[in-house]
């Protein structure tokens, strides 16, 4: 079935539908990863996004039970060059298209995703629409323009206590759309809703508070920023990606939308004093652009020199705009070498 992708600037791409049919609007972002379609699809940080994958083959390894970043598909749509008609991996349970159908994720293939990526790089991330029902270009462009993102965080936040391995104090994770990779690093953590108060957090006597990654514009989370400000100095706070933006705002930093966000697994993050660093995974569209006196810039992105990690004066408060790939705890355990 025919499908059309329209961008708010009037750019049109025509392709073929795969996965769910229908019509979906969202912000269009590109990702330069070669693998990891299942992780992207299920990461709450990608909630309601239209993800463009530059790499031409998507779906090769199918969907498995281990790779979900949350319990459902979060992204609105996938834009790919070629959906793999077969999948081949010993862990695969179903095809990507079947999974997308079950989770109502719209897919469009046959797109020159390199052209689209370059277009987004040059013109910035923008709103877009994919439809299999309305193929009228003007109508689609106007619908894309009219799209106003909803409060995504309140849609994806949830609360639960992770099983505890050993007794003792624990980490509280304020859930802006946390993914499983992050949770794997904090066994026994208490996950709380994004509208929690500082008092409620402190009642749990955490050894650390993590503000998770998540979708949307972190600058709109003003209530949470106020609560986090109250936590600063009382308990170590660590913000990740959008959570990092929240922490940064609480520390008085400036947070702005980036022209092109960081969406990929090859972002070099270095300590500017030594040049030592890590290659990191990132998926965020907002960045920290200025810090007040007293807040230290610890790491920067080697490519575009954007701030990647800041720290409060006493070091108790840390904000990182990346997931270090090395620290993906779940990959280390449970894997079965010979």
């Amino acid at each position, binding site marked *: 079935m025919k499908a059309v992708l329209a961008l708010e600037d009037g750019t049109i791409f025509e392709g073929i539908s795969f996965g769910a049919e229908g019509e979906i609007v969202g912000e269009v972002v590109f990702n330069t990863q070669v693998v990891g379609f299942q992780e992207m699809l299920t990461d709450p940080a990608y909630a309601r996004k239209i993800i463009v994958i*530059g790499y031409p083959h998507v779906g090769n390894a199918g969907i498995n039970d281990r790779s979900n970043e949350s319990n459902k598909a979060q992204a609105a749509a996938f834009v790919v060059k070629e959906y793999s008609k077969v999948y081949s991996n010993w862990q695969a349970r179903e095809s990507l298209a079947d999974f997308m159908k079950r989770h109502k994720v719209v897919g469009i293939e046959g797109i020159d995703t390199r052209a689209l990526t370059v277009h987004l790089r040059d013109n910035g991330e923008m709103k877009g629409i994919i439809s299999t029902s309305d193929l009228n270009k003007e109508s689609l462009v106007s619908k894309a323009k009219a799209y106003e993102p909803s409060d995504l965080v309140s849609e994806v936040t949830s609360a639960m206590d992770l099983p505890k391995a050993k007794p003792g104090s624990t980490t509280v994770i304020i859930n802006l759309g946390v993914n499983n990779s992050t949770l794997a690093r904090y066994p026994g953590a208490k996950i709380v809703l994004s509208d929690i108060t500082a008092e409620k957090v402190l009642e749990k006597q955490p050894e650390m508070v993590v503000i998770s990654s998540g979708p949307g514009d972190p600058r709109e989370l003003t209530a949470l920023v106020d609560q986090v400000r109250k936590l600063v100095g009382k308990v170590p706070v660590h913000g990740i990606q959008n959570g990092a933006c929240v922490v940064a705002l609480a520390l008085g930093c400036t947070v702005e939308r980036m022209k092109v966000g960081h969406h990929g697994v090859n972002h070099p993050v270095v300590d500017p004093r030594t040049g030592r660093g890590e*290659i990191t995974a990132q998926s965020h569209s907002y960045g920290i652009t200025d810090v007040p006196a007293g807040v230290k810039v610890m790491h920067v992105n080697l490519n575009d020199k954007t701030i990647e990690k800041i720290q409060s004066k006493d070091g108790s408060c840390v904000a990182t705009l990346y997931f270090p790939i090395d620290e993906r705890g779940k990959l280390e355990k449970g894997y079965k070498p010979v």
Partner: protein
Amino acid sequence: MPKRTDIKKILIISSGPIVIGSACEFDYSGSQACKALREEGYETVLINSNPATIMTDPGMADHTYIEPLEPEFIEKVIAKEKPDALLPTLGGQTGLNMGFFLSRAGILKKYGVEVIGADAKAIERAEDRDKFKQTMASIGIAVPESGIATTVEEGLALGDKIGFPIILRPAFTMGGAGGSCAYNIDELKTGLELALDVSPLKQVLVEQSVLGWKEVEFEVIRDCKDNVIIVTSMENIDPMGVHTGDSIVVAPAQTLTKEEFVHLENLCKKIIRAVGINGGGTNIQFAVNPDDGRVVIIEINPRVSRSSALASKATGFPIARVAAKLAVGLSLDEIVNQVTGKTYTFFEPTVDYAVFKVCRFTFEKFPEANPVLSTSMKAVGEAMSIGRNYKESLQKGIRSLEYRRFGLGADGRDVPPELSADAELVKQKLVYPNADRIFWLRYAIKNGMSDQEIYEHSKIDPWFVHQMREIAEMEEKVAAYKLADIPDKLLLEAKGLGFSDIQIAHLTGSNEVAVYEHRKEKGITPVYKLVDTCGGEIDPMKPYFYSSYDNAKDECRATGKKKIMVLGGGPNRIGQGIEFDYCCCHASFAIKEEGYEAIMVNSNPETVSTDFDTSDRLYFEPLTREDVLHIVQKEKPEGVIVQFGGQTPLNLAHQLAEAGVPILGTSVDSIDRAEDRKRFKTLLKKLKLAQPANGTSVSFAEAKKVARKIGYPVVVRPSYVLGGRAMVIVYDEGDLEEYMQKAVIASPDRPILIDKFLDDAIEVDVDCVSDGKKTVVMGIMEHIEEAGIHSGDSACVIPTFSLAKTMLEEIRKASYALAKDLKVKGLMNIQYAVKDGKLYVLEVNPRASRTVPYVSKATGIPWAKIATKAMMGKSLKEQGIDKEVIPEHFSVKEAVFPFNRFPGVDPVLGPEMKSTGEVMGIDHDLGVAYMKAQIAAGQKLPLSGKIFISVNDKDKRKIVDIAKRFDALGYQIVSTSGTAGVLRKNGLEIEEVAKLGEGRPDVLDLIKNGEVKLLINTPGDKKTKVDETKIRSGAIMHMIPIVTTLSGARATALGIEAVKKKGYSVRALQDYHK
């Protein structure tokens, strides 16, 4: 970290001649290293015996030594140059082995030389099988169950413990040389013997087989700050059991989940840290069980490699350049990524295209060899293709190979239906890996075999199988139409799956040109996309290009400037290798010097020509009519150079000229006058030049007539071939008939050439350059071996040593006359034979020849550059080139052969070229220069001990003098009865040994026990061939030098004499040409 200032002068050991497993990828990496170190201000010393390389150009390093890569010579270079540091990781396994050896032997310590790039301990942890196992165990990484054996008995005991099948891997060899797979005790025993023989450490790893597991490789780099990056992953389509150098490889890996991917990447990081590489790169190979994801590590190579060259070209990330800079203390975050121009090398490249590496084999040259692929590498070259999906890329890759296949079948060249429909045959072809397996896979699909069945037979992952199925399905859709009524959408889709015009023509009953014109009319043409290292995330400064029919956006960056396009040589093969890449690179340099833009088109990832900074724009494309024409249409070059890339671009010249493409230099008609036998005969007659009696024929009946008229023996061959493909000396009609039957396959649409064979003639090669008015001889080369041995396989010398002055004058005159009449503009190579004082013209090639780089190194003049400028209209006079340069020193070129890869193949020389590479020996004494060339070529000629001499009856009289020389030099001569009798009659004391089957110990025993140090054995007739092959092949496998011609034997005796008198010394090329 800033670069080190405590070292000033760095020695780079390179890899020597092109052999299977160590090819021109090391010219690429060595050139990169030289450039990178000079950029940083270091003084560089380079040692490499291979004159056909760009890196040995006098401008690349400060001091260039074309000397054998043996410790004795390297020590002399060290003593002379006194470098502060040695960089052994840029010269492949040869460089690494030499570095390791020099370190162990205390030579580096003696001269105060520090190893940079990877220290001796790290090299040991990576290369010594036992230490490697320990290191992997210490970080919890599984290795296949295995043990080290140093004797056959130990190996058998280990085999008993591990269970069959078993893989044998000798330590410290390259390209898996000497490795094998054993399914039973007999195979294990012979495999162990061979492996122990070839391992310089006499160590072999006896290993549990993981046959059929996925083979996944990574290129990993670590700097002195402990920053680690993964450059790319690669997945072998042919799973474990086929050497990665022989496998079809895709980058990046395709069938892993992200979790598996990240797991392997994390293992890579652990490994590079544990091995202790802290300023360099390594290749890491894993096997992954497709059924449960279990992972074992196979091996690592702590150096640049064939895989790292491929990874560099596949991603745009120049690993060798970066490795050289890391070795002197810089870190990844300090080195600029030159492709983007604005980011650094501390990042991980990503791609938005699919890359294929396909291999070029050469089994047709070695018909006795077993054409099954295994753990010992056999490919002689490779092509890389890029597309916006795997199908596009795969089909481009196949047509890049220039096997005269134009995609995955359906090109009019498939095997007849009775073979492709033979279910049992197809199954066999899937089960036993072979060079054509991919085509058999298509037959299997066509025969209705399922992806799963094909997987079970071949162990090729169903994902890849299905890609091929999609190609086969498209084939049927296209075949339903005639060209005129094929829907545009379908045609575009087919092109998007990589279908060539030839395939579409075959499927629609049309022809290539018509399909091309049809597409042009309909606007179905490709766009160009970028290799930019970053998947489109950054607007790059210096990307390179590939075509695609994914056509929403054309990123072609053609300018309106004046430009010249150079067509490269495609994949290496015997007869067409690095020499032509050398010429193409020089063409590019010259074009740039003249203020034009240089546009390069090539498909070979191993080369300097496909380096991102050799030309202004690089198109990584197959060299076929449509692919080249598409680029011409975008770039609109002033001219296209077809005469430098060997036969590949030359074969396109006609078609391109017909399509209106301006061909630079000598006209296509002149090329045809030289190649077309009839026209050539007329030309020689006109110029009153002699050629051996000859004729052409298209049938056996005709051939018989011609041969009778000329008189046997005759040389027969197809026209328009390179490297003497299918060329043989025929002694009677029976052989001629046999040949005519086979030859039809060798070159279907061109006649067979028949020449009188000149016995015992001296062969002479002449290279010259002309600007259309004036011609200058670049060099006259006298062959060591007599005419009848392919010129590419003969040793030759500049200047000549036995030809009379008058003869040299005659040769020059003939050359000038030929150049003038053919209106040569550019390079020309002529082969002459001198017999009984008479000059014969054997062949004229108005194009770059294999010897151009050798002549350039011998004379110190960059001839390919001069020729390019001449083609562009700059006269030789304007360039200051007015006369032939006759050097005072001798430069001997010697060929290097792949016989050690093909056990059981007779290493005897003939008119069909078999060598893969060449070396050069240079000295003021001819004998010493010859010896240097021999040693560099791997002939470890002994200075004392026993030598075995056995020659055919024809040679028995002439061997006497040679034997006397060896006797006088103190050698003990061993012979079989016939030769012994003759030598004894002439007063020599001979030890007699039994012929094969006439008692023990026989010759083979002496060879195996290392009792004889040199074999001189000239081939007899068909009756003795079987035994002789065993002897000669045995010598090759046991690395005992062997000489198979009388002239070679004579030169060897003279060489040894000279060395015994004078000894060896080394001298930089720059000093020879001061």
